[in-house]
């Protein structure tokens, strides 16, 4: 329905878009990291876009399925135009940084903190990038695919189950 948004992004930022699809009606644009910030500003401030509601930000780990390994997914909505869009930025494990959108929408603050906490994705320019759901002493990032389902933490010592040379 609002494929128009995707088209507008592609038309306006031809270099920024890696790919796009609208599976099951969810319009999705995969962006290059360098262009994320300007696309976000465009989406928020352009009269035809007006994406004023930051719905969700999260990370996804595709370890063992796809390359690059990580993705940051933004869900945005416009209460004025009543359309939605999903932005994605693909990130390589070696360079897990993405510009923070806190300057565009204040509401992504905690969501970005959560993505940092769960995946270790660094949001450049975030004013207060701390862990949010886990605690400061937590080691590793819990939602990564290589974090075990039953992980143990320094504050909760449990027997190690490693297949290392022992």
């Amino acid at each position, binding site marked *: 329905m609002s494929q128009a948004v995707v088209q507008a992004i592609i038309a306006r930022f031809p270099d920024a878009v890696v790919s796009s699809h609208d599976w099951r009606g969810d319009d999705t644009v995969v962006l290059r990291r360098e262009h994320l910030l300007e696309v976000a500003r465009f989406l928020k401030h352009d009269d035809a876009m007006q994406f004023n509601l930051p719905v969700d930000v999260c990370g996804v780990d595709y370890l063992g399925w796809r390359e690059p390994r990580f993705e940051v997914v933004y869900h945005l909505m416009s209460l004025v135009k009543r359309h939605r869009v999903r932005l994605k930025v693909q990130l390589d494990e070696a360079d897990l940084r993405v510009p923070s959108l806190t300057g565009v929408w204040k509401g992504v603050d905690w969501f970005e903190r959560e993505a940092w906490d769960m995946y270790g994705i660094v949001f450049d320019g975030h004013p207060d990038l701390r862990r949010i759901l886990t605690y400061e002493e937590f080691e590793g990032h819990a939602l990564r695919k290589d974090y075990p389902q039953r992980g143990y933490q320094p504050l909760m010592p449990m*027997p*190690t*189950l490693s*297949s*290392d*040379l*022992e």
Partner: protein
Amino acid sequence: MPTLKIDGREVTVERGTTILDAARKVGIDIPTFCYHPGLTKPANCRMCLVDTNKAPKPTPACYAECMDDMEVSTQSPEIVKTRKAVLEFILLNHPVDCPICDQAGECVLQDHYFKYSATPSRLAHKKVHKPKVKRLGPDVVLDAERCILCTRCIRFCDEVAKETQLEIVNRGEHSEITTFPGKQLDNPYAGNTVDICPVGALTSVDFRFRTRVWMLQSSDGVCPECSRGCKTRTDVFENVPRRTKPLHNPRVNDWWMCDEGRLAYRDYQALPRMEGPAAQVEGKRRVVTNVEAIEAAALELGAVAQRQKIGVVATPWFTNEDAWLVAELLRGPLAGARIYLGGRADGTADEILRMADKNPNRAGVEAIFEAAGLKAAPLSALDTAGLEALLVFGDQHALDEAGLEKLERVPRRVVVSAFQTPLWKMATTFLPARTHFEKVGTFTNFEGMVQRLEQAVNAAASCKSYGYYAMKLAELMGHTISFVRPEDVFAEVARTVPGFAGMTWQGLAPYGMKLGEGVAPAEPPTLPQAAPPAAPTEA
């Protein structure tokens, strides 16, 4: 070289290729029941029917050969309907047995029905009843009601095991599999019939009702029961191995393995495991911590000034990594020690898979020791005269009473083993080891095939691999080697042992590599400089 189109995709194949193989080559899956790549093709289940322009009726894809200009359709409405009909026919007399059937979860019938039909039953009559629990042999039970008469088991006995033991009796819906009168399904490969049975008609007495297959966690391994080294899969539930199944490796074992290897996992559960390290404390043997035991072992070995007075019993149950680390120990701090290579006694062999040498890695250990310049005598030539200390690895040594007595005469006896054996009883210092289920590493079979072993079971924290102990002992005796992952050790093996040259850990998947098969190294392999034997430590 016929070129044909399957579902619109063009493919060129060798003459004589079946449509099924051609389709799988381009990634189109055609369901089958009776077809097995390792057996002949009777085309009796009709599941693989496809439409072709060369025949007025649907053609069995597993049997029909490709022809030029053939156009095959695996998804036409006609075929979809045919498959549903075949499934309905097969299920017509199939009992409502999933809850008690061991195959549920890996049942081809379940998969195909759910994928290709998933429509309700139209049966309005009684199902035909046949014998339910019929023992065909020592390890195989038949449920005739569940059988879909694909004859895979019959063909397997005839073609692979070369012993004609099974047949079909009666006709029509009363047909059933049975053994020839007076015969039993007791050939040494009988367990494979259970594996290849697409439904739950043949089940293993050993595995029957123990657990459900979808709860199992599998890990690839190598069967250690003989030097063939069949590629296997160990299925584990709640950290206990529940069964061993052969995996396809065309270079070693095709799809099969012998029952001996298949059921051997039980022996490891039956043997009493020893998980407590022990050492002499004030003249008595006590259970100590791992670190203390290793230190005690290092002191005992270090107390012997002349390395010639130390005897070392190595085992062909080492992984290549263990062997390399032990070789480092023997080349460095224990250089000059008298080395024996033990292992289990020879057993039966046949032309199919089984080898006489019942140890998994003799070839690998020998190659690595040779590269390290170590000479190992067979255990049969054991001579402990004049030895002051003994370091014994492994538990499955062919040692008779006399041999044990000879060992016991040595005053200091360090034993590294996993189970409670006579060796454990006589050890002055005991270090608990891991079994092959608990290790990551590689085995080299009699032909020099190097295959990877995954960890199937979590070991107790006190149990370590042979290589770890060798590494720690060497470290305590002045020769520091430090590795964390077995992969890293293997990389060293590949670098320093000629036969392994060019092999990589990743390169071993899926079917392994043969010694000498890797790319030759650019420069001759160099062994790391071995430390001179450390000065004897005061005991």
